[in-house]
């Protein structure tokens, strides 16, 4: 892959990948390292010949795999904890509540939800990234949202 194409992909997708990995692994520093690793792998392996949506799906598939491997290697990494930004107390409480609620979802439901809400992927892109059909993506999104609505009802009132 040419340096120009790598630079373009990095410029277009690094923020979405970073935020997705922040939510997935729960640590900002680790998310930064993983984001760099994502684009290193993309640069080495090269993207398949596809359109812009296919590119994003492929990049997020790499990001998802790296994030899941990071979580599975938890014994050799600091324990993933809730994201604690330099924010006021209420925001930290909301972050904790959301983090705990997200980790009560199944792994795939959580990934679909995060790709949609944090990564901004379309249903088709999520389907390609997670090896699902678009119908399955809609179904999992609906299930995730219903579960989070129930779990986070008090927090959702605060977020209005």
């Amino acid at each position, binding site marked *: 892959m040419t340096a120009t194409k790598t630079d373009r992909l990095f410029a277009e997708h690094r*923020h979405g990948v970073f*935020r997705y990995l922040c939510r997935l692994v729960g640590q900002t520093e680790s998310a930064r390292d993983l*984001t760099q690793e994502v684009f290193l792998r993309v640069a080495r392996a090269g993207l398949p010949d596809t359109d812009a949506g296919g590119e994003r799906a492929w990049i997020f598939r790499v990001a998802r795999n790296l994030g899941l491997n990071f979580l599975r290697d938890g014994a050799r990494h600091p324990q993933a904890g809730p994201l604690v930004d330099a924010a006021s107390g209420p925001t930290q409480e909301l972050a904790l509540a959301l983090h705990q609620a997200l980790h009560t979802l199944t792994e795939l439901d959580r990934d679909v939800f995060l790709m*949609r809400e944090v990564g901004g992927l379309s249903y088709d892109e999520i389907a390609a990234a997670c090896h699902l059909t678009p119908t399955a993506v809609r179904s999992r*999104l*609906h299930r995730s*949202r219903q579960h*989070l609505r129930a779990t986070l009802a008090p927090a*959702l009132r605060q977020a209005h």
Partner: protein
Amino acid sequence: MDAHFDTLAAWADGEPADRAAVLRALETAEGRDYVVDLMALRRLVAVTTPPAHAHDAHTAAQQPRRWFVPVAAAAVLCVAAGYVAGRTAVPALPASPAASRPVGISAPAPAPTHVIRFEAGVDWRETTGGN
């Protein structure tokens, strides 16, 4: 899965959705509650997720150390070049005091206060007396 929720989710996610179906779904209390909660959930995720520039902030924090190196190298080169230029441009010492006078001064030289005349055969050893 409830058709209303599916329609409203697709509409909120920017996916293709039938306008009439969206309006019908919004006519129900459950549909309106769903959309309100969906937007609140989206906002909750947004405010509790590090902003995109948090990724760049870490990289930017390293920039001062990176540009400092070439700036320091350039400063050293300038000092060294100035030193070399100064050494090579030093003028030759004048052969007599008169030669060090800047060109263009037309004022006459002051009269000598002592005249030393060399005479061959004179014993130049130090003697007492004199100035």
